[in-house]
C-alpha cells in the first residue's frame, strides 16, 4: 500500500520541460479515454467548469457555523457550550430548514449573505465530513480500528484534506493536482496550468504531472502578478535575456536546481500569457478572502483568451485556530467569508458561469464541542468531523447532505462523550470521508468512474463516491 503511493523520482534533464510532458504522461498512463471524451464534448465555449476550494485554515469550528435550532437539538448544544459562554444565542441564529432533515437549523449570525444564497437554493451543507481511512464507528475507534495518521494535528489534518490520503502524510500530490492530471484532456490547448493557487504553495495543487500556477491576490493587477523587470530591447539586454534563458536549461541533473529552473521557466511562460487585467462587474470586499476570490474571478474572465475549459483554484482564509477569543474571532472571519463568497457568486452570475463554477470549503478539522477556557477568552480545541459548504448553480442547494451518524440522522449528536464523540470533549467521528466529498465534486468536474480510484486511491473503502449534492 505504501509503496504504491510513493512516486518515484521523475525529474532530471528534459523530463520535466514543457515539451516532454506528453511522453511523461504516457509513462504515467495518464493519456486516457478522456481524450476521446474531450473530442465529443468539444463543441464550443460552453464547456467550462471550475472548482474553487476555499480552505478555512486553522480548523473552523463548524459546531458554531451550523447549529440545531429545533428545541431538542439546541438544548443539547446549549448544555454543552452555554455555561462557558461559547453557545450562540438561539435568537441570533439565521434560520435554515433542510428538507433532508425536516428540522430547523441555524447558520452563524455572521453568515447573512450565505443565508440569502441558501434561500435561493445556491448552496448546500455537507455534514460531518472528516479524514478517514475507512468507515469507522465510535466503538471501532475505541477498540483501535485503523484511523487517519495524527488526528487533531494541524499540519497532518490539513495535508490529509488536501491529499485525500489519510493513512500517511508523505504524499507529494494533492487531489486537486491529481484531478487535473486526469482531466487534462478536457482542457487541451489551455495556455496556463489548470490549477491555480492564490494562496501560495500547497500540496492540494500538485499532481504527478500538474505543476500549479501560483499568483498573488488582488489588488495586484493580473498582468502584473508575474513580471520580469529590467529588460529592454538593446542588443546587450537581449543577449542577457538569452543567456538567462539558456542558463535555465543547464545543470538540470541537479534536482533542486532543476526544480528552481522549472518553476522560473513556468513563471516566464505564464507571464507572457497574462497580458491583460479584465474588469469585473461586482465590487469585491477588500479583505484577505475577497482579494483572493477577486483574482480568481479575473482569471475566469480571462478564460476564453487563455483557452481554458477546466480550472481548479485554491484560496485560503487563515485564522480559524480559535483556542481563545473565538466569539469575536470566528465571527469576524465568517463575516469576511460570507461577504466574499456572495461577491464571488454574484460575479459568476455576471459572467454567465454560475452554473459552471462550484465553490466549496475545506478545513483542518472542526473543534471540540466542549469549550476551552471560559467567558471572554473562550475558545475550543482541535477535533475531527465538521460541516462544509458547497456553492453554485450546479449544486442541489438549500439542503443538507451526508451519511447517517450514530443517531440515524446525518447530523451528529451534540453531546460530549455522546454516541458520535470519540473523546469526552465532543470530537465527532466523521461519517463522510474527504474522499466521498471530493469525489462528488470531481465527478461533476468530469472525472469518470474508471479513473476515480486513480485520483482517490482509497475511494473504494467507502460506500459511495456520490453524495448527491451536485446536480
Amino acid at each position, binding site marked *: 500500500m*505504501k*509503496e504504491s503511493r*510513493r512516486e*518515484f*523520482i*521523475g*525529474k*532530471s*534533464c528534459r523530463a520535466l520541460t514543457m515539451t516532454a510532458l506528453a511522453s511523461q504522461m504516457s509513462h504515467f498512463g495518464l493519456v486516457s479515454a478522456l481524450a476521446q471524451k474531450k473530442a465529443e464534448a468539444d463543441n464550443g465555449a460552453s464547456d467550462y467548469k471550475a472548482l474553487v476550494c476555499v480552505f478555512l485554515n486553522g480548523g473552523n469550528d463548524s459546531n458554531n457555523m451550523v447549529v440545531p435550532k429545533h428545541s431538542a437539538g439546541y438544548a443539547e448544544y446549549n448544555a454543552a457550550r452555554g455555561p*462557558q459562554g461559547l453557545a450562540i444565542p438561539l435568537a441570533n441564529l439565521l434560520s435554515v430548514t433542510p428538507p433532508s432533515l425536516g428540522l430547523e437549523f441555524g447558520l452563524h449570525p455572521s453568515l447573512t449573505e450565505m443565508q440569502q444564497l441558501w434561500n435561493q437554493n445556491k448552496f448546500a451543507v455537507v455534514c460531518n465530513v472528516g479524514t478517514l481511512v475507512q468507515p469507522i464507528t465510535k466503538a471501532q475507534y475505541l477498540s483501535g480500528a485503523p484511523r487517519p*495518521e*495524527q488526528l*487533531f*494535528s*494541524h*499540519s497532518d489534518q490539513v495535508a490529509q484534506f488536501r491529499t485525500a490520503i489519510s493513512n500517511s502524510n*508523505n504524499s*507529494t*500530490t494533492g487531489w486537486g493536482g491529481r484531478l487535473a492530471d486526469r482531466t487534462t484532456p478536457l482542457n487541451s490547448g489551455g495556455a496556463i496550468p489548470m490549477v491555480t*493557487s492564490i494562496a*501560495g*504553495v500547497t500540496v492540494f495543487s500538485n499532481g*504527478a504531472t500538474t505543476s500549479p*500556477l501560483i*499568483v498573488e491576490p488582488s489588488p495586484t493587477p493580473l498582468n502584473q*502578478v*508575474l*513580471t*520580469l*523587470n*529590467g529588460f529592454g530591447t538593446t542588443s*546587450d539586454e537581449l*543577449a*542577457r535575456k*538569452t*543567456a*538567462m534563458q*539558456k*542558463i535555465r536549461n*543547464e*545543470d538540470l*541533473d*541537479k*534536482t*533542486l*536546481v*532543476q*526544480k*528552481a529552473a522549472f518553476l*522560473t521557466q513556468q513563471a*516566464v511562460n505564464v507571464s507572457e500569457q497574462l497580458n491583460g487585467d479584465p474588469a469585473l462587474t461586482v465590487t469585491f470586499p477588500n479583505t484577505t478572502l475577497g482579494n483572493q476570490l477577486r483574482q480568481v474571478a479575473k482569471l475566469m474572465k480571462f478564460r476564453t483568451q487563455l483557452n481554458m475549459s477546466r480550472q481548479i483554484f485554491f484560496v485560503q482564509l487563515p485564522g480559524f*485556530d480559535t*483556542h*481563545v477569543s473565538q466569539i469575536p474571532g470566528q465571527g469576524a472571519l465568517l463575516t469576511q467569508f460570507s461577504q466574499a463568497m456572495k461577491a464571488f457568486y454574484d460575479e459568476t452570475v455576471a459572467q454567465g458561469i454560475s452554473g459552471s463554477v462550484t465553490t466549496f470549503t475545506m478545513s483542518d478539522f472542526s473543534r471540540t464541542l466542549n469549550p*476551552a*477556557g*471560559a467567558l471572554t477568552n473562550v475558545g475550543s*480545541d*482541535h477535533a475531527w468531523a465538521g460541516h462544509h459548504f458547497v456553492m453554485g448553480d450546479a449544486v442541489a442547494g438549500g439542503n443538507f447532505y451526508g451519511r447517517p451518524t450514530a443517531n440515524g440522522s446525518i447530523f451528529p449528536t451534540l453531546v460530549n462523550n455522546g454516541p458520535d464523540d470519540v*473523546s469526552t470533549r465532543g470530537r465527532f467521528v466523521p461519517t463522510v470521508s474527504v474522499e466521498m466529498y471530493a469525489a462528488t465534486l470531481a465527478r461533476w468536474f468530469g472525472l469518470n468512474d474508471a479513473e476515480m480510484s486513480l485520483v482517490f486511491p482509497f475511494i473504494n473503502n467507502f460506500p459511495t463516491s456520490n453524495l448527491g449534492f451536485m446536480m
Partner: protein
Amino acid sequence: MPGFSVNRLIFRSIISCLFVFAFTFFAFAANLPEDAPILISQPDSTRALTAGKTRKGLDYSLNVFPAEGKTRITLFVTNIELLKNEGANAFRVDAQDSRYFRYPMRVISLEPLADRPWVYALTVQLHGQMGNVGDVLIRANWRGVASNRVRVSIGYQGGKISDDEGSVPTPMPEKPVVKEQTANLVGLPWTGDRVRFMQQATFGANAALESRLRRITYSTWLNEQMEEKRDANGAIRYSTFPYPVLTLQPTSPATNCGVTCLRDNYSMYPLQNWFFREALYGEDQQLRRRVSWALSQIWVVSGRETIQPSRMLPYLKILDRNAFGNYRDLMREMTLNPAMGNYLDMAISTRQSPNENYAREILQLFSVGLYQLNQDGTVKTDAQGNPFPTYDQNVVNGFTKVFTGWSFCETTAACPNRTVNAVNFIDDLLLNPNNHDTTEKQLLNYPGAVSTIPAGLSGDEDLDRALDNIFYHPNVAPFVSKILIQQLVTSNPTPAYVGRVSAVFNNNGNNVRGDLKAVIRAILLDPEARGNLKTDPDYGHLREPVLLVSNILRPNDATSNANAAGNCNNQSDGVLNGATSALDQDVFNPPSVFNYYPLTYVLQNTDLHAPEFGIFSTGTALKRPNFINQMVFGTGIERSANSPCGTKINITRWQNLAASDATGAGLVDGLNRELLHNSMSPQVRTHIMQAVQAVAPTNTLKRAQTAIYLVTTAPQFQIQR
C-alpha cells in the same frame, strides 16, 4: 573471518580479468573529484561489475536483473575512507533510465572485501516502480560527492542510454587509489570549500572573512565566534549591534499613536532592521545569528500575534543567548517566555480550562516529532513499513495538565519588569498554584523514561520532570540535528551525517547532552559539509529569501544609498524586509507555527525534502531576479521615510576585474569563485561570457552588472550547494 567468505568467492572468480588493467587504474578517475567514490566496472566497458543473489549464493556474472522491487544488486565501490560507524547509511544510490527518470535505490549493506579492504561490496535494492527499463546508469553519492556512473540492465539488456561524457572503464583495482593532492590546498585563496563554509556559517562570504579564515582555520574561527563577547560595560553581549530599545505598550495603541508610532511600537519593523544589520555587518556574531535564526524557525513565535516588538524581543534574546547553550535550557526558557505563552496559549491554560495548544506543538515541532526515529533520523517502521507514533492523545492530555496554571507575571513582588498599563512580556510566566492541575500525568513512554508524574507535585516540579521527559527522549537528538543540518547545510543529509551529529547531541564528549556548541561544530565540520565540490545531484538547499538577499549583499559590500546622512556610517539601515516579504519571508512574522515554510516540505514527485521550496513558486520565482535587478541595475533601495539610509551594493571590485581582462573571463571566473564556490559548469560559463561580451569592453560597469545579474539569478545560485 566467516562473514567474508562470500566476498572472497566473488573475488576469486573475477580475479582473472583484473591484473591486465591494474596499472591503468588511476587514469579513469581523472574526470572525478579526488574525493569521489568510484564504482567499479568491467575491465573493458562502463558496465558495472555486479553480483546478484541466486539460490547458490552470489553470482558475479549477473548483469541483467529482474525488474522487481525485491531485486538486490551488489555493486563494488572504492576510493572511500570510512569513519567509524559510517556504513550503508552514508550512501545514496540512484539509477537513471533512458527517459531520464531517476529512481532512488535503497541501500542495504556495505561491506569491505576480505582480500581487498579498499574495495567495498555495496548492495542496493531496486525501486518497486522501475519496470523493464533496460540499461540504466547507477551512481553512488557519498558525503555529497557523486561517483562515476556505471551501466546495469534492468529487465533486458539494451535501451538508448549513453554513457556520461568522458566516462571510462573503472576496473577492479589491485591496490588502494593513491590520493594525489591537487591544487585544492587549504591555504589557497577562495577555495570552494571555504566559500561554501562562509555561506553555511554566516550570512554570506566576503573578502575580509575569507582571508581571516585562511589564516586562522575554521576551528579557531568557530571558537572565536562561540566565545563570550562583552560590551563596554563588561556585560555579556549576544549581538554586534545593540538590541533596539523598546518599551512595553498598552495592548490597544493610544488614539494619538500615528503611523510612525505604530511602526515603531506595534510592528516588527525595528527588529527586522536590527536583524538585517546584524546579518550584513555583525562580524563577531555571524554564527550566533545564523543559529539563532535557524532556532527561530523551530521554536516559532509570530509577530502577527505578538504585535509589539517589545514583546518579541525577550523571545529573540532567548534564542541568541541559547544558540551556543544547552537545548534543555532553551526548552525551559522558551516554555516560560510570555510571547510563546501568548502565541501557543499556555499563558491562559488553567486546570479549570485547559488548552492543548502548547502541549501539542512542543512535542510535534520543537522536540520529538510525530514518529519514532532511529538515531540517524530515519523513521522506525514495523515489518509492513508503518511508522510508530511518538505519542498519543493521552500524552498530549498529560502535558496539557503539566502546562496549566502559568500566566503573565503581574505581581509586584515577583515581576521586576511589570509595566503599568501593559502586559508583562518580559518576565517569565508566573505559576498560580490554584490554576495548576495536580492530578497524575501521562508523559512520553520510551525505554528508561519516567513516563508518569504522580499526583500532588508543584507546578515547578511538574514542569522540570516533563521537560526532562521530553529532553531525554531518543528522538530529540536526530530530530533537532536534522533540522539544523537542513537549515545550515543541505536539505537531504545522508542518515550517516545525521547520525554523526545526533551522537554529538547525545554526548558532546564530556557526557553532556544537548550542547549546541558541539552540535553546530559537528554540523559544520562534518565531511558531508566540507570539501571543495559537491556533485551529489541531491546536495544542497534552496536559499531562503533572507539568505538570498544577504548572500548577495555581503559579497558586494552593501552600503547606505547615495547622500545618506553621516550617522548612517556608510552602512545600510537594514530596511530589507520589503525584499524578503515579497518572497514570502516576512521576517519575524511567519504565517503560523509551521514557520515561513514547512520544515517537512517534500518536493513534488520526489522523496526529497526541500523545506524552502514551500515558498518558492511561479508566484515568487520572478521576484528574485526583480530584486537583483533593482540592486544591480537599479539604484538599490532608495532612502525614504521608512528607510533613512537606504541600501545599495558596490561593484567596483568586479568592474576592476572587467577592466583588467577584456575577454570577460576574469570577471566571470571571479564571480564563480566568490559566489558559486567554483561550481559553475562550463556551459553556464559560456552563456554568461556571451552576454558579457555583448557589452562593449570599455563599459566595465555594464559588463560587471551583466555578469553579477546572470550569476545571482541563475537557478544554480538559488540552490546553495
